[in-house]
C-alpha cells in the first residue's frame, strides 16, 4: 500500500498514481477534503503503529510501504490537526517517503538553502537580503543587473532590476527583499529521483521562464545531456539534503560554469516530462515500491 497525500487534481500526484496503478500497486489518496474527516489512532514509539481512516477506508500502518506527499494548504482548522498527524506519520514511517517533511524544509527559506548549496561546493549567485534602500542601491550599482525574488517558499514571479529601477529600491524599507546578481546563461531543470537524473534545458527570453507566456515571451524545453560529473554532484547534494526526489534549478554560464539556484523538494514535473519524454513519474513509482 502506498499512501498519496496530495490535493485533488494535482498533476504530479495523478501521474504517480497512474504509474503505481500500472504496476498493480494498491494506493490510497488523501486530499484536502479527506483530511477534514480523517480518523486515526496511532502510537508513536520507535516507528508509528495503529491505523488511519480516510473516506471510510481504514489502513493499518503496518501495511503502508511508502508515502508520496504533495499536500496543499489545509482547508480548515480540523484539517490542520489531521495534517499535523500525517506529517508525524510521514516523518517516522519505516518505508519510502517522498519526501520526509523535514528534508524539504530548507526550501522554505531560499537564502538559507542557498547557503547549504554554497557549503556543498556549488557556485551560487551573489545574494543580499536587506531592508536598507542604500545597501540595495549599492548592490545594484555593483552588479548592474539584479534578480529580485521572494525569500520564502511562497511562489513568486522572479523579476529583474537594472539601474533604471533604482528608485524602486526605496520600497525595500518596508520588509526584507532578496536581491541576487543576475547570472547569464542557459537555464536547466534537473529532476533527481533516487539514483537517477533527468536534465531539461529551457531557452526563454523571460526572466522567469515559468511565466514566459504572461511576459509575452516563449519558453522552449528540451532534453539536455548533463555531464556525468555534474549529475553525480547533484545526486550527492540531494542525498545529503535527505531528499529522494528533487527538482534542481541551475544555469550554465557562457564560460561553462554551473550556478545552482534552488532545490525544490516537491517538484511539479509534468511540464518538463511532456516536453522531453522523461519518465519521471515512472521513476518515482519505481522508487516508492523499491
Amino acid at each position, binding site marked *: 500500500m502506498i499512501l498519496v497525500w496530495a490535493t485533488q487534481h494535482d498533476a504530479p500526484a495523478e501521474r504517480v498514481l497512474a504509474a503505481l496503478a500500472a504496476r498493480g500497486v494498491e494506493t490510497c489518496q488523501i486530499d484536502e477534503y479527506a483530511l477534514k474527516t480523517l480518523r486515526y489512532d496511532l502510537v508513536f514509539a520507535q516507528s508509528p503503529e495503529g491505523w488511519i481512516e480516510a473516506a471510510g477506508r481504514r489502513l493499518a500502518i503496518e501495511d503502508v510501504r511508502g508515502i508520496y506527499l504533495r499536500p496543499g494548504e489545509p482547508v480548515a482548522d480540523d484539517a490542520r490537526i489531521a495534517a499535523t498527524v500525517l506529517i508525524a506519520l510521514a516523518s517516522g514511517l519505516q518505508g519510502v517517503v517522498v519526501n520526509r517533511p523535514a528534508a524539504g524544509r530548507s526550501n*522554505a527559506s531560499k537564502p538559507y538553502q542557498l547557503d547549504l548549496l554554497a557549503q556543498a561546493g556549488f557556485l551560487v549567485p551573489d545574494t543580499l537580503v536587506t531592508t536598507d534602500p542604500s545597501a540595495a542601491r549599492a548592490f545594484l550599482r555593483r552588479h548592474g543587473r539584479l534578480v529580485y525574488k521572494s525569500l520564502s517558499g511562497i511562489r513568486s514571479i522572479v523579476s529583474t532590476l537594472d539601474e533604471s529601477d533604482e528608485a524602486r529600491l526605496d520600497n525595500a524599507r*518596508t520588509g526584507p527583499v532578496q536581491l541576487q546578481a543576475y547570472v547569464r546563461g542557459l537555464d536547466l531543470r534537473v529532476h533527481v529521483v533516487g539514483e537517477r537524473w533527468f536534465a531539461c534545458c529551457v531557452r526563454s527570453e523571460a526572466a522567469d521562464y515559468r511565466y514566459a507566456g504572461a511576459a509575452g515571451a516563449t519558453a522552449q524545453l528540451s532534453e539536455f545531456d548533463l555531464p556525468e560529473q555534474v549529475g553525480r554532484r547533484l545526486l550527492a547534494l540531494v542525498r545529503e539534503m535527505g531528499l529522494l526526489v528533487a527538482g534542481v534549478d541551475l544555469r550554465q554560464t557562457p564560460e561553462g560554469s554551473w550556478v545552482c539556484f534552488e532545490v525544490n523538494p516537491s517538484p511539479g514535473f509534468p511540464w518538463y516530462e511532456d516536453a522531453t519524454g522523461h519518465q519521471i513519474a515512472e521513476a518515482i513509482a519505481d522508487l516508492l515500491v523499491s
Partner: protein
Amino acid sequence: MIVVVGSRHDAVSSMLVERWPHAALCSAEDLVRPGWVWHHARPGQRTWIIDARPVRDEDVTGIFIRRSSVYAEEMLTTHPADRAFLASECHAFLTFILATTSARVVNPVSDGAFGEEALRPERWTTAASETGIAVRPVRVTSQARRRRGLRTTEVEVVGGEVFGELPARVLDRVRSMAERLRMVWGTLLFDARHRLINVTAMRPPSDAAAVSLGRFLTVGHT
C-alpha cells in the same frame, strides 16, 4: 551583546533581557524595520536591527531563540491582505540570519527550523534511543479519551551542564543525547519510570540554567 529573538508579548523574553547584561530583544517588528543588511558572501557586511537600532553582527556574541515562527498577526504595520506573505518572508529571513550569524545560537538551526521546531520528536526520539534513553510511547487519536495525569521530572541542559534530580546514569545519557542533537539548551520531561516524554526549548530557564546560559551567550563567536 546577547540578542533574545522573541516577542514583546512574551514575559520570558522580557525577563531574560532584564536578567542578562547587555541583552536586547529582537522582535517581529524589528524584522520589518529599515536597516537590515545581510550579505551572503560577506560576513563583515551584516547588520541587525535590534530594538529599532542597528547592530553589527560581529558585536553580537550570543542569540537566544524564544520563537519558532513569525506570525501574520505580528505584522501590524502592514496591510492585512499582505501580512501572511510578509510573515512568511520574515520567517525565511530569520532562518537565514540564525543559520549564518557568527554569534552563538541557542539552539542552532536544524533542517531549516529554529526554536521548538528544531527539536522535532523524530529527532529527539532517535537521539534518545541511540544514547540508551527509554522513550514513553505517545498515542495520538481522533477518538475522545480520558487523559491521565502524569507525574513528571524535569531535567535542564545548558551546554555540557545538566540540572535535575535523576540518577547519574540517566543524566550522563541526557548529556550525550544533547550533544547528538547539538542542543545547547532544553528541558527534558521524564515519567516516573525515567522514560522520556518530551523535549522542549520553550520552558522558562531555572535560575541556575539562566545564569549558565548568560555565561554561554556572552563568551563570543562560534
